[in-house]
């Protein structure tokens, strides 16, 4: 039996983390969280999360950076905004979740084979290149990177969609694009300039 310490020492916490998240998310109200748990009770997916939204808010405030950024919680949030609307302290919890997702990606510590972050990045990538999403393209990419066998499981639904004209064979090869991609590329490039400063 492996015995290890289950409590973190205060000196091991990242004390500035809460402040950074407040800035990053544009949501200073995190500091006013009263731990009432309304967010967790209204959240439709909290029962699958490793840390409930209430717990996560406390962790952010206290500086549990590693646990927060490595959690599955942030990648299970489906952006239904139920917590945001209900929070008595007016914390925009959904936006805090977005912030933590971005920080996890920036630091490269998101769960690499978990489908949600892979799908999100595939989608962002194709839209910034083509200006248009490809439902087929991003789903294929997600499956290949996380669970290639999953593609087989999707075959029956794919067939049903093909039969009804809701998916077409050409979707496998064709990628929709906007006309003014030059403008879009200039936009992408322009936005990155600040990061370099």
């Amino acid at each position, binding site marked *: 039996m492996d015995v290890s310490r289950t409590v973190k020492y205060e000196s091991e916490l990242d004390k500035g983390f809460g402040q950074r998240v407040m800035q990053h998310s544009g949501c200073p109200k995190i500091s006013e969280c009263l731990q009432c748990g309304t967010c967790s009770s209204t959240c439709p997916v909290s029962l699958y999360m490793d840390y409930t939204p209430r717990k996560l808010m406390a962790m952010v405030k206290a500086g549990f950076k590693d646990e927060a950024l490595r959690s599955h919680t942030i990648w299970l949030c489906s952006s239904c*905004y139920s917590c945001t609307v209900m929070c008595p302290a007016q914390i925009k919890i959904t936006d805090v979740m977005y912030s933590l997702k971005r920080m996890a*990606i920036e630091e490269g510590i998101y769960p690499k084979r978990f489908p949600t972050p892979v799908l*999100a990045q595939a989608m962002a990538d194709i839209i910034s290149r083509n200006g248009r999403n490809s439902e087929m393209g991003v789903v294929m990419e997600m499956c290949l990177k996380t669970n290639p066998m999953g593609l087989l499981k999707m075959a029956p639904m794919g067939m049903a969609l093909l039969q009804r004209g809701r998916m077409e064979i050409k979707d496998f090869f064709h990628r929709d694009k906007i006309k003014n991609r030059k*403008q879009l590329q200039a936009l992408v490039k*322009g*936005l990155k300039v600040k990061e370099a400063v």
Partner: protein
Amino acid sequence: MKTYGYYPGCSVRSTSKAYEKSLLGVFKALNLELKELNDWNCCGATAYFGVDKDMAMAVSGRNLALAEQQKLDALVAPCAGCYLTLKKANEYLKDHPGDHINKTMDRVDLHYSGKVRIRHPLEVLTTDAGVKAIAAAVKRPLKGWKVASYYGCQMVRPYMDMDDPYDPQIMDHVMEALGAEPVDYPYKTRCCGGSLTGTVEEVGQRLVYMLFNEMEKHGANAVATACPLCHFNLDAYQSKVIDRFSKGFDQAKGKKLEPIPILHFTQIIGYALGMEPKQLGFSDLMTRPTRLVAAS
């Protein structure tokens, strides 16, 4: 005839063609014109905000700026995801004039001064045309249709300017005006799982199952949706979800759920206004409303 800018979004051009077909038909029948935004790009949905906030705001900002350039003062977005994302970018860009995102947009000929209003077709139909006008145009009252209106999340939250965020009524009023019986049930705005149905199946598909369970328990024989992703989750995953979870907490009642037709709300309006199932894309549905069509 009133004219609105139209932002289709990716779903109505792929897996939800029937939504666009019926939407255009209904708008035309009620004397409202939709003019497609030229060279629109995808909104990035919820996914983009979790990857790059500046880009997420800017890609939607491009659509807003294009709308201004094309002299469209409103953009009608049939997808709840597009509706929310465009609205979110709209608020942000208006609240942060001269910030890095606005400045960068200016430099690439995408100046946005904040004049575009983002609207959902359900709201346009009920406020600009009006429920009374819809009722007056009914040629085929929906006798025997017991419709559970499913609003989902992003149409009513976090922007609560359309209806109540937990107990909205407008779609129910429309169904009533069409001669259908609106079904009241508790999960009207509970999340359908969004993309979780395909990414983390156990979680997403369970959410879909919970919706069916409530809708059918309260007597629905059809469902109306106002978002292509909600529609896809309920329609395309229905039989899978029933097989997977019916053995669970419903067995006590000794009844397995039956698949019921899930329709885009515009398909239901169109049918009541006398359009033919073919024009409305009924054959695209996984469970077709055959019995209901035969009865009304």
